[in-house]
């Protein structure tokens, strides 16, 4: 059974239909990349899996670990092992990363019937996971994302992913706003967290990120549907030929 199984998913924001029948299966141990031009539903799909209340699902189902998650509260989905790396991480003045993560880690442990981590256990875990993205100590004592550079925000997303150790991670344009060094660090972090027991979905515009995080499957999301699926070479082909190529193929097929 697939870890995540999406069937005929339709969704809208306000009155505008964005997803028009998505079908997708993801198994443990796999890395999937979802590519496609802006405004075609990539972030919507990520938001729906994580539970962003902004979107309304009108048809279809999302089965994760055998459970239909569409009626599940956002925090419960997270505690079941779903993680969304935000395209635009939200600034939360007054809440330090340390405080934020300790609350999150302990709520997750409570959900799974485990005792909360003590202060020292937590700090030890944090020190260990900070290394995944080469994070400095200062950053952890600052308010969540407040005044962070683009690179710091994305590092912080991957740091949180490392702390929460999700089964399914969806990374929404984690490469946007990164310089080449930050891109390497972030990608390196994601690779360290890969295991046969988890799966990663990488949403991106550019093939560049996929040089570092090598996907098993590449999907093209266009006008609310997955119109093409292929091996990692598909990303290179897209880079070369552009999305116009897909559009022409689709028109020819009609």
């Amino acid at each position, binding site marked *: 059974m697939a870890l995540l199984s999406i069937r005929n998913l339709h969704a809208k924001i306000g009155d505008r239909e964005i997803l028009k029948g998505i079908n997708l299966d993801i198994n443990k141990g796999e890395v999937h990349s979802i590519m496609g031009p802006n405004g075609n539903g990539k972030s919507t799909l990520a938001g729906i899996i994580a539970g962003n209340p902004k979107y309304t699902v009108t048809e279809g189902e999302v089965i994760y670990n055998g459970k239909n998650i569409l009626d599940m509260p956002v925090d419960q989905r997270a505690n079941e092992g779903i993680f969304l790396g935000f395209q635009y*991480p*939200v600034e939360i003045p*007054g*809440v330090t990363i340390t*405080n934020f993560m300790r*609350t*999150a880690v*302990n709520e997750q442990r409570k959900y799974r019937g485990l005792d909360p981590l003590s202060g020292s256990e937590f700090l030890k875990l944090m020190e260990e996971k900070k290394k995944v993205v080469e994070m400095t100590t200062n950053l952890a004592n600052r308010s969540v994302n407040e005044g962070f550079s683009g690179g710091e925000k994305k590092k912080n997303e991957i740091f949180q992913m490392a702390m929460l150790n999700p089964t399914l991670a969806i990374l929404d344009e984690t490469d946007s706003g990164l310089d080449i060094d930050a891109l390497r660090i972030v990608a390196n972090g994601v690779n360290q967290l890969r295991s046969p027991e988890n799966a990663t979905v990488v949403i991106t515009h550019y093939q560049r990120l996929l040089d570092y995080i090598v996907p098993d499957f590449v999907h093209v999301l266009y006008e609310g549907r997955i119109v093409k699926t292929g091996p990692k070479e598909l990303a290179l082909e897209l880079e070369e030929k552009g999305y116009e190529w897909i559009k022409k193929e689709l028109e020819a097929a009609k």
Partner: protein
Amino acid sequence: MTDIIQQFRDIRATLRKNEVWRDVDFSAMMPEGMKLPSGDKAEEKDYPCNIPDLDVTKLTVINGRCVNPYYEEPDGVAYGSLSEARQRRPETVAKYLGKSDKSDNAYERLNATNHEDGIFIFLPAGIKKEYKFQIVNIIDSNEPIFVQTRNLVVVGSGSMLTLLQCDDSIGESRSMSNNVTEIIADSESSVQHYKLQNMNDMSGLLNHSYTQLEEGAQFSTSVITLNGGHIRNHAEVNMRGEHCHVEANGLYLIDKEQQADNYIFVNHLKPHCESHALYKGIMDDSAHASFNGHVLVSDGAVKTEAFQTNRNILLTDKATVQSKPFLEIYNDDVKCSHGSTTGQIDELAMFYIRSRGISERTARTMLLYAFCDEVIQKIALAPLRNRLSDMVKQRLHGELTPCSECALHCNNTCGCNDAPAFEIDPDKL
């Protein structure tokens, strides 16, 4: 002569056209049969308003009467009951009482002529030791009472004072208080004035603070309103010398039918002074708040820096706030700004926090606490800051409704069983 309570009631009608006072209406807090306190010498009961590690001299005022005797330290520092100070140091009291700069208003005048008692604190010039006092102002009465207290605080040149002023009420006491505090701070002195208000829903409080600063004086004040029926803080700060520094902060967390009003007038009379005001509030249920901030920069007050911010969160459609930041500037060589925002909880931030597995309730508390934290962090006195941080978290449990006993009395630790998981103070890690 009309009785004092009636005089207080009648003031309202005379101030209908006064910009500052026209909306002030305490009639809901004044039931029929309200009386003046009995006038018996108050006995000191044990009101353990203690803050851990806060090393202060506690002065208790019960129903307007100070229970502490007048006391003089060998270095000349004097404190205790204002009535006793009148006997013991008539010249000092006569020199300062009622003499601080203030705008004329009938509520203050009524207090001036009819107050019960209050606290007198006098620090001569050049005291090296930093004195810390806590005024515990308690209402404890089976009958509805009308109380007027008056505090006089004089800080000599170069001396340093920390003053914590707590307003509390016991049990089901119904009361209306019209209290005045005058602070006269001489040159190069430093005064920290914290006001902590935690009264029951039947308490009305009109709390005046008049502060007068001479050259180089530093004044910082924070007013934290955690509970109360209707509380109005009327503060005026006059900078009469150059190089004064003023920081004024406020936090009000109200629910049910409560009302909290803050008025602050900051008067820049001389050059090179600086003032910062930051007031924040959260209103739940049908609560109503107002902020009215007025910064006046005089013609000659060049190189003034004055900043004023008011931010509010409304948790329901019925909660309301009126915000009026106001700058009045009479010279070109200044740096001033003001701003006001009112909104709801940020839904995107809620989604972000919950997407990490944090429950909706804890996420809300986290965001509301974070909103308050900016004001709490401005409290320089660490034990007070920590205590307040805990009290604000208690207040925010389950939105704003305080669990049965805890938020009403600052001495109790909260016995809630359903405390949210968000309990970490990063300072304590």
